[in-house]
């Protein structure tokens, strides 16, 4: 892989933010679309692109599904499509980006939501909802977080001095 882990995590963080801004509420819709690519040993990016194109045209009828899946799937197709348009990805890098993105979608609250989701009827009572990150990069931790902090852009004051 030519991209560093930091670049990959940064891209994943941006993708997760874009997806959450587009009302993708959880990793489910995201993984349903990129999951087969991630588990494919060959990592055929063209096949992923082709699948998303067909899906967007209504193939299989999946965009008509209820419970918000259709809207979320359209957002995933749009945002992942933008990522692929950059044409700079190796399959392993892309899999890593998607893996990090799924993790971030799981641990971050969507920006517009104020509290944990209401428990739906029939769900297990032990589900505690998503954790609220306390820092901008709260979804990340450990070594990668330290590395990312160190590459934050300099503050305007620093530029003046």
């Amino acid at each position, binding site marked *: 892989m030519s991209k560093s882990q930091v670049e990959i995590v940064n891209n994943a963080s941006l993708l997760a933010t874009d997806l959450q801004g587009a009302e993708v509420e959880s990793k*489910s819709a995201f*993984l*349903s*679309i990129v*999951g*087969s690519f991630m*588990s494919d040993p060959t990592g055929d990016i063209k*096949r992923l692109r*082709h*699948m998303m194109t*067909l*899906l967007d045209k209504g*193939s*299989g*009828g*999946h965009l*008509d*599904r*209820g*419970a918000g899946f259709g809207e979320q799937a359209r957002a995933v197709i749009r945002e992942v499509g933008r990522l692929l348009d950059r044409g700079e990805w190796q399959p392993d890098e892309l899999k890593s980006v998607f893996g990090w993105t799924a993790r971030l979608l799981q641990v971050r609250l969507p920006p517009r939501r104020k509290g944990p989701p209401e428990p739906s*009827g*029939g769900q*297990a*009572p*032990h589900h505690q909802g998503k954790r609220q990150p306390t820092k901008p990069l709260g979804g990340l931790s450990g070594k990668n977080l330290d590395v990312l902090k160190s590459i934050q852009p300099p503050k305007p004051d620093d530029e003046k001095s």
Partner: protein
Amino acid sequence: MARHGLTRPTGEIHRERPPDHFDHDRWRKALFTGSLSLCLKILEDQFVSPSTGRLTLTRKGGLEVVAQEVARAAGTPVIPGSGIKGAVRTVYELLSFSCDPFSRSCDAHACCDACSLFGVLGRSGRVSFNDARPAKDGSVRVEVREVPMPYPPPRLECDVCLYDLQKIQQRNGDRKTLAREVFLGTFETRMTFWNVTPEELGRLLLCMGFGTAESTRFFLRLGGVKYDGKGAVTVLPRQLVLASPSRNTLQGDALKRELDGWIQTARDSEWAKTFWPKLEEVAGLLRGAA
């Protein structure tokens, strides 16, 4: 389609500390340890579709289509053993004074009937199922089918919900469909058990639809699209390998006699006095008579 809510007969859940001899690493001579090979035969007008939750690019009639993906292991079609165990456990829970596993009311030191046999957080079960694989080369084929779009089912006040074999009713006469990969054919799996009593084995077989009488036989339901009456399989025993109480391998008539003996033990037990009518109700529903 009809979704049926079923409740247990009135009675209290009895929780007991599983005896030490239920440990999986010690085989007790008085109890049964071994494995039972099973054939899962999908009915002619049925399919089984254990989904992975992913969408995949596949072909239908020469055209590319995006479909919901079925489970595979290294490219081979499989019905996950966890799904088979879950289907059997659901019926077993209904036919015993057992807890709601999502309530986490049982633990390793106090188990209800179902948690003692199938396991609970902190204590392994005494029954497991392997992933079901094709019975032989070419015995399973994968097709893409258009299945009705699911919708949230009505909430029912009950202990367990089961679907019958009827197709889903059209709402507003305009039901949309989804493309989904499905399995057709015959699978094989293996149920492994440790330190299980003959009565428990009999009840386990009854919960897979093995009844010796027509009134207690039914089709086990596996995979998705149950709301459209799909997922029905006939479970047939192939071979029993016993490690305890004595080493033995049984097939054919000898196997049938052994299994019938376990079922008869369950039939003669205290359990049957309470739960036999409920078993017949479940069998009627899952056989398609409802």
